[in-house]
């Protein structure tokens, strides 16, 4: 069991960190070159020189595109028309056609942008009219625009939630299920002593896991914590009051460990989906967005990211800290009140 507790955070952090990167890569292309001029070959080479795309085939048969996309051999096809080279040089605006497998609409949308950029960069070499506007860009806090720096703090936040909520609820329910809770009931131990004794280990364990996963993340992905560890610890502890409180509540409404696990999973899934981990909260429709404001994990994920990436301070995080604090106190108090040493 201990082995699992140690391995799972590491594995999850690493896996999620690498897997949920949205950087487009290795999209396989089939190119129909009806022109076969030096210009068309040059254009095709632009696609070979980037690792975002793989040119799987160059052919003259247009029907191949639909065929290969249909049987999942290619993601997209590009049709270079006849006289492309000539038209390009004579500035007659030749028309290139792109055909996409849009089952994954999200990826298709991103791929279009990249292909469009490659084509226009290429074609501008032949244009006598150069763009008037030159714009450079710089990204702060994340110079390489690597998704890891953004994902890893979020993943760690989710991890801590899972561990604290799941384990606390299951540990408490197990006592109920096995019958030892009844035995504890006849001892003079007070309710708060029982809960403190049960929950403090999980509080400490969750904090340890948090930093452990964070260190692993920094080591594996080469990212650095910019903020204050003290601030992070305090805020994580506040957040843990909420999750542990939820764990206690779950143990109250569950009779078996399986139920506790399902309830925990239920909560976790929705908290995670609505936390801004996978999708920024600002992108969500208004009706869903107000639900996220009720989600303690949303504030915590935000705080973790801000402190980790920008070294953000207490003063600026007020908007996130206050709800977290309020949640911590109310949820924890409420669940402790509902917890009875009796079996219902």
């Amino acid at each position: 069991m201990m082995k699992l507790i140690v391995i799972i955070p590491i594995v999850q952090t690493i896996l999620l960190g690498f897997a949920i990167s949205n950087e487009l890569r290795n999209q396989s292309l089939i190119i129909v070159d009806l022109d076969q001029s030096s210009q068309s070959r040059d254009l095709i080479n632009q696609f070979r020189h980037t690792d975002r795309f793989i040119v799987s085939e160059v052919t003259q048969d247009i029907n191949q595109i639909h065929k290969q996309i249909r049987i999942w051999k290619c993601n997209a096809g590009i049709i270079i028309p006849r006289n492309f080279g000539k038209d390009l040089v004579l500035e007659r605006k030749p028309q290139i056609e792109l055909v996409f497998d849009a089952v994954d609409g999200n990826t298709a949308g991103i791929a279009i942008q990249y292909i469009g950029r490659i084509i226009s960069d290429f074609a501008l070499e032949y244009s006598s009219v150069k763009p008037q506007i030159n714009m450079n860009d710089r990204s702060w806090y994340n110079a390489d625009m690597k998704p890891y720096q953004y994902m890893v703090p979020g993943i760690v936040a989710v991890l801590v939630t899972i561990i604290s909520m799941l384990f606390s609820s299951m540990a408490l329910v197990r006592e109920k299920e096995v019958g030892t809770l009844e035995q504890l009931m006849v001892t003079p131990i007070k309710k708060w002593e029982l809960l403190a004794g049960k929950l403090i280990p999980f509080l400490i364990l969750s904090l340890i896991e948090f930093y452990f996963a964070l260190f692993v993340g920094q080591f594996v992905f080469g990212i650095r914590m910019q903020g204050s560890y003290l601030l992070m610890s305090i805020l994580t502890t506040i957040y843990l009051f909420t999750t542990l409180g939820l764990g206690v509540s779950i143990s109250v409404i569950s009779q078996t460990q399986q139920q506790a696990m399902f309830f925990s999973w239920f909560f976790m899934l929705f908290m995670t989906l609505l936390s801004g981990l996978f999708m920024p909260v600002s992108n969500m429709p208004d009706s869903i967005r107000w639900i996220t404001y009720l989600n303690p994990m949303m504030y915590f994920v935000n705080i973790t990211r801000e402190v980790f990436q920008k070294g953000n301070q207490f003063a600026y995080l007020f908007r996130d800290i206050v709800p977290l604090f309020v949640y911590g106190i109310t949820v924890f108090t409420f669940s402790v009140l509902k917890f009875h040493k009796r079996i219902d």
Partner: protein
Amino acid sequence: MQMLNKTRILAIAKKEFFHIIHDPRSLIIVLILPVLQLIMFGYALNSEVSNINLGIADNSHSTQSYEIKKKFIGSDLYTVYDISNQPEAIHQAFLQQKLNAVLLIDRDMKNHQLILDGSDPNVSAYIKDYVLQTMQSGAEYLPVDVRTQMLYNPELKSSYFFVPGLIALILIMISALLTSISITREKENGTLEQLLVSPLHPLEFILGKILPYIVISMFIGLIILFFGMLLFEVVFLGNFIVFVLLSLVYVCTALSLGLMISTVSKTQMQAMMLALMITMLPTVMLSGFISPISSMPKFLQLISWIIPAKYYLKITRGLMIKGNTFTELLEPTFILIAFTMLLIVIAWKKFDKQMKELG
């Protein structure tokens, strides 16, 4: 091996059904969870950026710079703020999460600068593209005309992509997770040992245990399919019977996975953790459910080869969205069948060994 007694199998199955029905809490969650997930994914997950808080520092104060500013102010996509050039001011604005990006308009109108809050690289990549497009809009100089055709999903609906994935997730969750927990619970409580000293053959026990979960998972899978088509207008181009048959194959793969997990677990908690690690996490992350496998680093792509959901996803997406025929989906089908057989053999060997050790 003697003939398996059908009555005994059905008796075990009935007992299992009984247990399931009398655990309404789990049942409700198992039914509601998928539907809610469906709704959540459908409405909440949208990766298009809907609003950009853009700070503009105009160092030129010319008619041309005004023209540029007008493009942004006039667009619904941006909320424009005035900001000074100072890095400290920009840093403050980012810390207070007031702005997503800052555009520094060059005094000489030659080289402009866009500073992005890079803490969310996905969003900032979009913002970069949008700002560039907006800046260049109205210019007539693009030398090539590009036409695009989106096959199978012209409106780029995300539901087409994730509804099949959700079905895959639910099926493996119910089949593998619930089965492994159920069998392990019997082990934990000691009732497994009791059952095995009865005339019940181990194989009868296993088949009886599995039967209810096959029914439940197929049922819930179909509910998700139904709601997905109803709520999000997901199409279904292929053959429905083939879909049901191939889904059964996948359910069998998931069940054999659950069986294997139950043979190596001693407690329910162990079974649950293992099941989550081996079914849920890989299915969500590595099967192509959310992000394409081709975009992942090589070592993850290799791991994805042993994840059953990856093949089932191709099957469901192929059947539903592309209208693939059975012949076109032979490869993933065979792989799933091979997986199932391998897992059953492993589980059986382990189980047999444990049985012998029990005496």
